[in-house]
């Protein structure tokens, strides 16, 4: 069934179709309607699940640690400062190999106080051992929800996941979406039956003390699980497409990349706007294409190298900064190419910070600047885009 709904409602319905056993959330700012709709589903008897209102995001994720270790399918959602408050627990979840799925709504981190969209929050959590996939539109964020439960719960992966979706731009938009069929989702995503659970009759320890003679091996296994997750993301994407008829590519997707001289690399909702800009630029004869990063963790190193090998200039467009050294995606992408024979210039644009709108005009400007690198060489590896000099 297709219907026009608010993005948050679409996500809540996708979560309902995944039949979570426990949802634990902090319902107050910063939060979205996602958890509000879920609480309505539970209250109306549309979702049979333990719904816990807690006093902070630290507690929401901590309570899911217990529930997940006891064998429950668990879900939460947060954004910006809420994710920052979860930071300690993020590492506990991934270290204990608990397949919690969280919709992380991307919003700027204070200060200065901002409620608007950028991706600084999840980018700051990129080392936390969570799978991170960025959605271009509401439908993709919905469709990712059962996929990520399936990937996270895979015994070879057992790694938590974040569905990253741009705050306001995707959570508050009304647009037509296809609703998931709960029966089909049940078939696609069977109940969670973990091999190891907390059980008083068969006691085990999760998150045990690990002295230096053990710690490295835990981290090694987590690292290997993330490598396996990359394969599973590809596989589950294909399975989803077969069952539901909607595909988005695997770890990455490409747009208009045949013969592209300038290649943009970006992720999240700005991909849609960039595609519009590329269509216009192509009609004017500008050879520009786009690589959309879906999976940022695991990082699609090989796929990116393959997709970008023939470009003359590569430009990242990202909504975060690593204050002190560039921006996360730019640095990661350069790292992917360093030991390869490909020496294409790579420049980065940090744009859309704190919700500054990125439109077709801004993308055109970025493509124009990147094109110039072909003649002039790299002048600045990172440009913080659209700075108002008169305000400084």
């Amino acid at each position, binding site marked *: 069934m*297709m*219907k*026009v709904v*608010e993005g948050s409602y679409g996500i809540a319905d996708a979560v309902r179709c995944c039949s979570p056993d426990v949802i634990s959330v902090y319902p107050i700012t910063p939060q979205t309607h996602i958890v509000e709709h879920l609480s309505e589903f539970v209250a109306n008897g549309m979702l049979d699940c333990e719904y816990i209102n807690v006093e902070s995001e630290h507690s929401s994720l901590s309570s899911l640690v217990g529930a997940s270790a006891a064998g429950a399918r668990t879900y939460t959602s947060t954004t910006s400062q809420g994710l920052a408050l979860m930071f300690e627990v993020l590492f506990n979840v991934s270290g204990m190999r608990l397949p919690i799925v969280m919709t992380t709504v991307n919003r700027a981190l204070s200060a200065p106080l901002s*409620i*608007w*969209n950028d991706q600084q929050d999840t980018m700051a959590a990129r080392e936390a051992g969570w799978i991170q996939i960025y959605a271009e*539109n509401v439908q993709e964020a919905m469709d990712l929800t059962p996929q990520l439960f399936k990937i996270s719960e895979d015994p070879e992966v057992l790694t938590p996941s974040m569905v990253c979706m*741009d705050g*306001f*731009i*995707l959570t*508050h*938009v*009304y*647009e*037509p979406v296809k609703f998931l069929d709960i029966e089909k989702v049940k078939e696609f995503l069977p109940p969670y039956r973990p091999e190891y659970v907390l059980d008083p009759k068969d006691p085990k320890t999760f998150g045990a003390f690990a002295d230096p003679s053990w710690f490295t091996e835990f981290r090694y296994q987590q690292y290997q699980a993330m490598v396996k997750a990359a394969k599973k993301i590809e596989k589950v994407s294909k399975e989803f497409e077969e069952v539901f008829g909607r595909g988005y590519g695997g770890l990455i997707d490409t747009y208009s990349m045949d013969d592209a001289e300038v290649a943009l690399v970006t992720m999240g*909702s*700005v991909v*849609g*706007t960039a*595609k*519009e800009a590329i269509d216009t630029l192509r009609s004017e004869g500008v050879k520009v294409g786009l690589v959309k990063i879906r999976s940022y963790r695991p990082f699609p190193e090989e796929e990116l190298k393959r997709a970008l090998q023939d470009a003359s200039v590569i430009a990242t467009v990202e909504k975060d900064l690593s204050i002190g050294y560039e921006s996360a995606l730019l640095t990661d992408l350069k790292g992917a190419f360093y030991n390869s024979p490909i020496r294409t210039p790579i420049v980065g644009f940090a744009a859309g910070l704190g*919700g500054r*709108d*990125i*439109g*077709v*005009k*801004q993308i055109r400007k970025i493509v124009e600047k990147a094109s110039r690198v072909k003649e002039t060489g790299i002048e600045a590896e990172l440009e913080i885009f659209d700075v108002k000099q008169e305000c400084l």
Partner: protein
Amino acid sequence: MKEIRFHCRGGQGAVTAAELIAIAAFEDKKYSQAFPAFGVERRGAPVMAFARISGEPIRIRSQVYEPDYVIVQDVTLLEVVDVASGLKPEGKIIINTDREAKDLSLKTKAQVVTIDATRIALETLGRPIVNTTMLGAFCGATGEISLDSIDKAILTRFSGSLGEKNLAAIKTAYEGVSS
């Protein structure tokens, strides 16, 4: 693709109006999108919302800078906001006012359509809430969506006598600008 920008004051329901246009356009078998200009909403402050209607899936996610249509729910905004900013010369701006278009001295080449939506809303709904009434005017002035679909969209939000009253207000406004 047609792009629409709504201007109102916080609490006057432009965001709901944009959503209803998106729902109605989808009823007409078109793709649609609606979203507010995200801000810290305060009652009475100038607020914007946007909608897009297209025969193709809509990928663009930026705000609307060069609208085909502008809907102004509160005429006092003309003194504080450049409501016609970027409006396409072949477009239309629909304003809730009891004045005539020529008396508004708007800086635009686009057609200015006026409708006394406040009077219609007071007479029909008994309250000066004009967002749904303005949808009737939009329908009549642009033909971008059918009256039928707007009515269906309204009934997803308002049921019973409130729904009926809103439909009546929409019809009056539709006829007011169509004639």
